């Protein structure tokens, strides 16, 4: 019975529900009167609950870090596979092109075209890799900031809760009215919670920075692909011009 009373003075949600059905509203004045008697035993329960939540958060942090790492490795592997497939496909295309070249002049033009395309691909891949690296570095930095803010918010929350409990203890020791001390503690705890929730709003701003990073990456990749398109078209037009198409240069400027 005493355990239920103690816990209900500093009650995490689950405990409130439990005591609500057994104690009822008629026990509230009695509970309030007992507040100062039980505070030394009850406060560790609240602090312990906070600690458990913090441990759960820490475990989640590890899971997220691991998942992020795995996710990036999977993305890299998929990209490597695509690059390999595209390389093989490109070889086949170049072979087909070479078969069409009959004269030395045509063969030389095809070689120039292939070299130009390979250079453009190397440049495009480097630009994409750079965009991906920048995105990941940005996400890592945003995640670090978020975690630092979370840690800071939790530290502040724990300090505020401890300070509130200590204040209540002091009031009880000084002979203050038990009900008054309990009400004050409720007020202080609510203030600590509000402060934490406000900090939480700042923490959630990571969503915006991640969106901005993704947008920057998207733009950089689009630019790289657009540059690649222009370079390939220029190489194609040069090849056409080399083998006698006077109209070739009109298509690559779009």
């Amino acid at each position, binding site marked *: 019975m005493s355990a239920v009373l103690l816990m209900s003075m500093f009650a995490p949600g689950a405990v409130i529900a439990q005591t609500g059905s057994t104690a009822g509203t008629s026990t509230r004045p009695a509970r309030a009167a007992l507040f100062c008697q039980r505070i030394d035993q009850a406060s560790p329960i609240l602090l312990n609950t906070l600690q458990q939540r913090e441990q759960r958060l820490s475990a989640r942090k590890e899971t*997220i870090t691991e998942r992020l790492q795995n996710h990036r490795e999977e993305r890299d592997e998929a990209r490597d596979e695509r690059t390999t497939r595209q390389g093989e496909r490109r070889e086949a295309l170049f072979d087909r092109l070479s078969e069409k070249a009959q004269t030395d002049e045509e063969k030389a033009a095809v070689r120039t075209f292939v070299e130009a395309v390979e250079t453009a691909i190397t440049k495009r891949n480097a630009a994409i890799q750079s965009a991906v690296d920048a995105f990941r570095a940005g996400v890592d930095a945003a995640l670090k900031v978020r975690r630092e803010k979370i840690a800071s918010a939790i530290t502040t929350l724990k300090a505020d809760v401890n300070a509130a409990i200590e204040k209540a203890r002091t009031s009880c020791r000084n002979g203050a009215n038990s009900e008054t001390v309990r009400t004050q503690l409720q007020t202080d705890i609510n203030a600590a919670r509000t402060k934490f929730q406000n900090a939480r709003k700042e923490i959630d701003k990571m969503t915006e920075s991640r969106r901005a990073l993704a947008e920057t990456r998207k733009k950089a990749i689009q630019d790289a*692909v657009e540059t690649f398109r222009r370079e390939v078209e220029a190489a194609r037009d040069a090849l056409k011009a080399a083998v006698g198409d006077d109209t070739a240069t009109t298509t690559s400027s779009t």
Partner: protein
Amino acid sequence: MKAKALGVFAVLIVLVGGILFYRQATGPQLPAGTAGENNGAVPSGSTSNNADALPPAGSDLQAEASIVSSDLISAAANESATFSVDEENFLLDDAGDLDAMSQAITVE
């Protein structure tokens, strides 16, 4: 006299009929290069008489260059599309834990 004239007429009819039958049986003798009148089959040797309809030298290579370029550009565009996926929503999976943290402190 009348019988002689009829005989000549009959011979002429047989000759004309024979010629028409022969032409129908063997087909017209087309000049080289008139492929369109021969169910699309280009007669042997007709190419030399129809040079304007042929692709210029190197046009196969030019056409292939266009195909290869389009293919490479299309592949690059597809590659870039794979990056548009928002891939890391799980980074905020701790939101529930943060909510639980603030809900953990209640004084009854």
